[in-house]
Every structure is written in structure tokens, then in C-alpha cells.
């Protein structure tokens, strides 16, 4: 007996959009690069784990539990525990990037990153806050199904098993929606701040975040050039949901986003890790499929089962 066709409603349309299959390479790229960028960001802290997490370094005392500067007071740990946390963070992050015990390593990595973000506000930045959420997203998804050690071990056990080419879209949709929310929120915050009339970009180029490139730009770019860059950022960020939703603007939005992050990363010293993290998300989420598959040297057509 034939099943009656599914009734098309807003809900079914949304579910179809949410679950639409995505090339597995999007997820694999995020799984390989995000933990590496997060570890690179944390590396300057992890090599001083005792100064970071134990009483060997300066610790902000307990502030009473209602202070935004201390969202959660976590007492310092012994230097031995601090080093153990550091080693586990590196090990779980590398394991996740390699797709080795992917689910467990992603869960552990997310938990450790959350602890590191909350244990010490002084070392918590935007990247620290983003890290646990991204690792958790990788944990909840089948991110180790291909291009990793778990996939390789599975293939050795069962060479006849077909190689996955796609994932259900949920996690990729999360990355895509999150990027739009992040850009749009940032754009509105800038609009409400000084970006329309003030010299925001210029004013942040004179302290110890200054790099050789920002100093050269300070000398080379005329005053109006900084204002023009501010307007371009505002146009890109505030309307990001539109640029990424429309198929004919999407690839230009990817290029604009990568350009913006490259400029930020090169001009503001340690902010480069934030720029790389966002660029990774951008590429994983929105890079045109043909480019993505070329990156992984995967042929786009039917030879998947044989060659993947």
C-alpha cells in the first residue's frame, strides 16, 4: 500500500531544511581544524598551567558570587592537578582533531575548555567561551565518521562497509546559524557603539596589540580609509543573515568574511586566534561544495564507495 504523501507545513519545511544532508567534509574540516585553533589559542596559557590554575600565580579572591567579573568562583587547584588538566586538554584536543575516540575526546575537550573558561576570568576571552560550545557540537554529531583514526579502524575491521559521504545537516546548520547570529549581533553592537561616527579601528591600533602590519597600515592608510573599513564591516556584519541566506551573495560573503578576519588577525596581535576560529567556522559552514570537495580531493560523483 502506498504511504500518503507527507503534508507540507512550515514545520516539515523547517525540519527538511535542518536535516538536509551536508557533505561530511564540512564536519570533518571543522573537527580537524577547530580543536587545533583552540589549542593554539590556549597554548600560551597551557605552558604556564601552574601560574594559571594554581596558587603559584595570582588568583582573584572570591568576590561574593554576584559579580559579573567572576561568573563562577572555582578555587585554585594544586600545581599537579593544573598540569594534569593541561595535559588532558592537549591530549583530548589532539585526539579530537585526529578523530581518535572522537565522541569521548570531544566530550572531554568540551568539559575541560568549559572548566578553563570558568576557572579563571582573567584568561577567558571570546575564544575561550566559544570553545566548549563548538567542541560539544562536534561531540553530539558523527564527526568521527570519516577522515580520522576511528574511521580508519572501522574500515580495517569491515572493509566492505560503505564510506559515509554525508551527514544529517543539524550540526552544520548550527554552525551556519551561529555564525549569522554572531556577525549580526556584533554588527548591531557596533552600530549601537561608536562605529558609525567614531574612530574605533584607528583607536585600537596604538597599544601593545600593535603588530608590524598594523603599524605599517597606521602609516599608510589615510584617515578616511579607517572610516571606510568600519562602514564595510558594519554592512557585512549587520546584514550577515541576508548575505549568507541568498545563494548569489553567499560566496562573496565568505570572501568578505575571510578578508575581514584576515585583517583583524594581522592587525591585533593575539586576536589572530579568534580570527582563525571564525574563519574555520566560515569555511566549514559556507564554502561552496565543489571547493570543499576539491580541498579533500574527493570526487563529487558516484565513485564514493569505491574511492572514499
Amino acid at each position, binding site marked *: 500500500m502506498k504511504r500518503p504523501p507527507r503534508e507540507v507545513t512550515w514545520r516539515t519545511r523547517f*525540519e527538511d531544511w535542518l536535516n538536509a544532508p551536508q557533505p561530511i567534509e564540512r564536519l570533518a574540516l571543522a573537527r580537524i581544524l577547530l580543536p587545533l585553533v583552540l589549542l593554539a589559542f590556549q597554548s600560551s596559557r597551557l605552558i604556564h598551567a601552574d*601560574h594559571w590554575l594554581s596558587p603559584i600565580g595570582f588568583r582573584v579572591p572570591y568576590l561574593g558570587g554576584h559579580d559579573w567579573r567572576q561568573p563562577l568562583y572555582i578555587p585554585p587547584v594544586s600545581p599537579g592537578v593544573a598540569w594534569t588538566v593541561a595535559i588532558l586538554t592537549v591530549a583530548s584536543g589532539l585526539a579530537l582533531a585526529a578523530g581518535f575516540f572522537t565522541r569521548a575526546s570531544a566530550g572531554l575537550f568540551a568539559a575541560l575548555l568549559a572548566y578553563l573558561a570558568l576557572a579563571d576570568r582573567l584568561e577567558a576571552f571570546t575564544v575561550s567561551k566559544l570553545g566548549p560550545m563548538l567542541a560539544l557540537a562536534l561531540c553530539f554529531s558523527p564527526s568521527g565518521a570519516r577522515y580520522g583514526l576511528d574511521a580508519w579502524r572501522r574500515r580495517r575491521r569491515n572493509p566492505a562497509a560503505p564510506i559515509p559521504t554525508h551527514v*544529517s545537516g543539524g550540526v552544520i546548520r548550527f554552525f551556519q546559524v551561529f555564525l549569522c*547570529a554572531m556577525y549580526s549581533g556584533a554588527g548591531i*553592537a557596533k552600530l549601537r557603539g561608536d562605529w558609525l561616527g567614531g574612530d574605533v579601528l584607528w583607536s585600537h591600533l596604538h597599544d601593545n596589540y600593535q603588530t608590524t602590519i598594523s603599524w605599517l597600515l597606521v*602609516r599608510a592608510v589615510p584617515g578616511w580609509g579607517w572610516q571606510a573599513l568600519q562602514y564595510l564591516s558594519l554592512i557585512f556584519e549587520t546584514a550577515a543573515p541576508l548575505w549568507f541566506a541568498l545563494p548569489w551573495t553567499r560566496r562573496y560573503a565568505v570572501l568578505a568574511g575571510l578578508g575581514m578576519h584576515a585583517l583583524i588577525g594581522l592587525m591585533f596581535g593575539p586576536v589572530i586566534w579568534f580570527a582563525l576560529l571564525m574563519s574555520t567556522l566560515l569555511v566549514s559552514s559556507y564554502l561552496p561544495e565543489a571547493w570543499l570537495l576539491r580541498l579533500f580531493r574527493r570526487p563529487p560523483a558516484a565513485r564514493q564507495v569505491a574511492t572514499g
Partner: protein
Amino acid sequence: MPARKPSGAVSGAAKPKPTPPDGARVMAQPWLPPSVRRIVAVLAGLYALFVWMDGAGIGLPDAILPLPLRFFVQEAALFPHSARDAIEWRAEGWRCDLGRFEELDVRPFFPIRRDDKESRFYRAMFFHYRQRRVLEALDEFIVEQQNRAHPEARIGGVMLLDLRIPIPPPGTPERRYERLPLTDYPQEVERKYWYVTASDDRTRRCEEPGAP
């Protein structure tokens, strides 16, 4: 060729689309049960919404989320305002042997990113420059570190201050940033003192065993 039913890590997704006639599509199997996936999807959507709201200045996340969760959605409002001055946080130490304050290079005591704004000293001053309790803890920490590292130059207390270096108008060519000693900054660079160790405490610490 129809898509083969995969086994092990791969199988049909929860709601697979019709397999294309070329048979290329093999879905990786999600490991969460569908009901949990739905809950996770709702939470993920709320997270993205709260990040956007926080950036857009809508106070709902502040109103309903406890501090530790709110912290994780406060990430979109980056650099919204222009800086009036370039701020340098500095410390001076009360030299027990000389009986006066002298500039103290505290960077070795805060080795994480010691030379930029992400140093723990900078961050502690940035967040807590009006919180005496934190400044007292900072005072104690710096005195202890200095006296352990340089017993020949013991200090009894500190002054914690910032320098406000004026930013020139856009397009003005300028010298590359470099960290200068306090004494090298010209008069027009404003100094704001946020904390000074009480005189009694300085005397007491200087008289403690081990002092010259």
C-alpha cells in the same frame, strides 16, 4: 545503483532524503537518539539566539540566565567603542632600602602573555581597578614575588597605576609602539593611581625577617 544500507558507523539517517539515482550518498549515523537530538537542537537554537540578543543589546539573556551560563553567551559585542587613550597598567614598588617608590617590572611575575594586554596583571587591573579587595591581593602577590626573586631589592608595598597615552588623530604617522620606562613618558601622559599600600603595612613588611 541504489544506495546500499550501510552498517556500523554509517546507515540511513533519521530522515534520509531519497537517494539520488547515482547512489553516491551514504549517510553517517547520528549517535544521539532522535528525542535527545531534538532537545539539543532547541538548546543550540536558543544559544545562538541569546548570543545575538546579547550583541544586539536585548537584555533577556541577562534577565533569565544565571551568571555562569550568561558568561558563555556574552561574546558578540566585540570592540563596540573607540578608545580615548592607549592604556598602560604599571606598578611601582616601595623600596625598603631606599625609602621611596620606584618602578617595578612585574612582567616576570605574570608570565602568561607577559608583554601584551592579555597578561594577568593587565587583566586583573582592567577588570578590578576599583575593587580594593582584589588590589590588596595583587599587592600581596607582587610583594611576595619581588622579595623572593630579588631579596637584595625588597619592597614593602606597591602603587598600582595606569598611564593614559593620547591617541593622535586618524592618519597621523607615529612611532611604533614600544614599552618605555615610566620616567620616559612626557608630562602630557596622564597617570592615574588606583592603589597605594598603606604606610603602616609598608613599614611592617620592610621590618619582617629577611628585610635588610
